[in-house]
């Protein structure tokens, strides 16, 4: 078992670096936008009314908060032998630090250029920080912050999703 009090040098060297880049498995599509809006009863005409979308955003766009949706891998795909996980850096850290459980403590999103049907997104994941060991009612572990920046096929910034995670061993 990895000693929790010491942060491995390899992991320390990751702080501040962009470690993983991922590409969406499909183009942004209107049907998924409608499914997402339907799940929260979002009747914003931008997402349902082509005329309104044309006049306000020069055509259809996706709700900004769908940012992470577009990079989540299919649950299964032909030829895939292992499950692909979103937020790969998070799972890499859990494994390296031997912290089997994790929660998302908080989430911060900022939004840039609107995402549109037909766009293809990529993201890059950067480890912003790792805390010293902490103990709370869940267990003992570490907090870390991962910034996930998203770009479209024209390399325009479309948003950033920052996760403050607590990964831990149960007490």
């Amino acid at each position, binding site marked *: 078992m990895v000693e929790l009090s010491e942060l491995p040098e390899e992991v320390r060297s990751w702080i501040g670096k962009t470690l993983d880049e991922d590409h969406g498995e499909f183009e942004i599509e209107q049907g998924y936008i409608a499914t997402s809006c339907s799940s*929260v009863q979002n009747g914003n*005409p931008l997402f349902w*009314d082509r005329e309104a979308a044309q006049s*306000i955003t020069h055509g259809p766009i996706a709700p900004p908060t769908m940012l992470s949706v577009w990079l*989540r891998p299919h*649950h299964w795909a032909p030829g895939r032998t292992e499950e692909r996980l979103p937020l790969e850096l998070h799972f890499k850290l859990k494994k390296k630090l031997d912290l089997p459980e994790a929660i998302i403590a908080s989430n*911060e999103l900022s939004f840039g250029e609107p995402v549109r049907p037909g766009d293809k997104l990529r993201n890059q994941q950067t480890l912003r920080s790792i805390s010293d060991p902490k103990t709370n009612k869940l267990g003992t572990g570490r907090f870390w912050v991962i910034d996930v920046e998203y770009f479209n096929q024209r390399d325009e910034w479309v948003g950033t999703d920052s996760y403050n995670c607590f990964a831990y061993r149960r007490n």
Partner: protein
Amino acid sequence: MASDLKILTADKVKEGDVVPPLSVNVSATTVVLGALASRDWRPMHHDRDFATNQGVRDIFLNTPNQAAWFERYLTDWSGPLGRVGRMKFKMRKSVCPGDAMVFNAVVKKTETDDVGCCWAELDVNLTVNDETVTACSVRIAIPANERDNPWERRGENWKP
């Protein structure tokens, strides 16, 4: 622009304004639909046995779906010209089937930035049984007047 669209302009928004509350009864369908709509296949959002074995009382709303609820709640208030620039939230407790969730929000601050974009900053609370389960803050661009459109802002003119 279509004339029947709701347009909330910055001159009609001030600190202390209260956004009408939104109440939603959460069912298993709400949770599962939200998870699948956000392509989150993890079992704690659709498999009750898995969730309870993890020490949670039931399946629960996932993170991106909560973000989608917050966006929907605030753009119901702002109308389609409202453009969310930034959102931060902290989840204190899970939202599960059988919960009646209530969204409330108050305008904490208004400002016009150095490129002329009008912003409202709101504190949004998601409560269950009058207890805050998720605390959220949102910065949303509001048109300065009926001719302004925050969605037209790009590059240096968009500072979320």
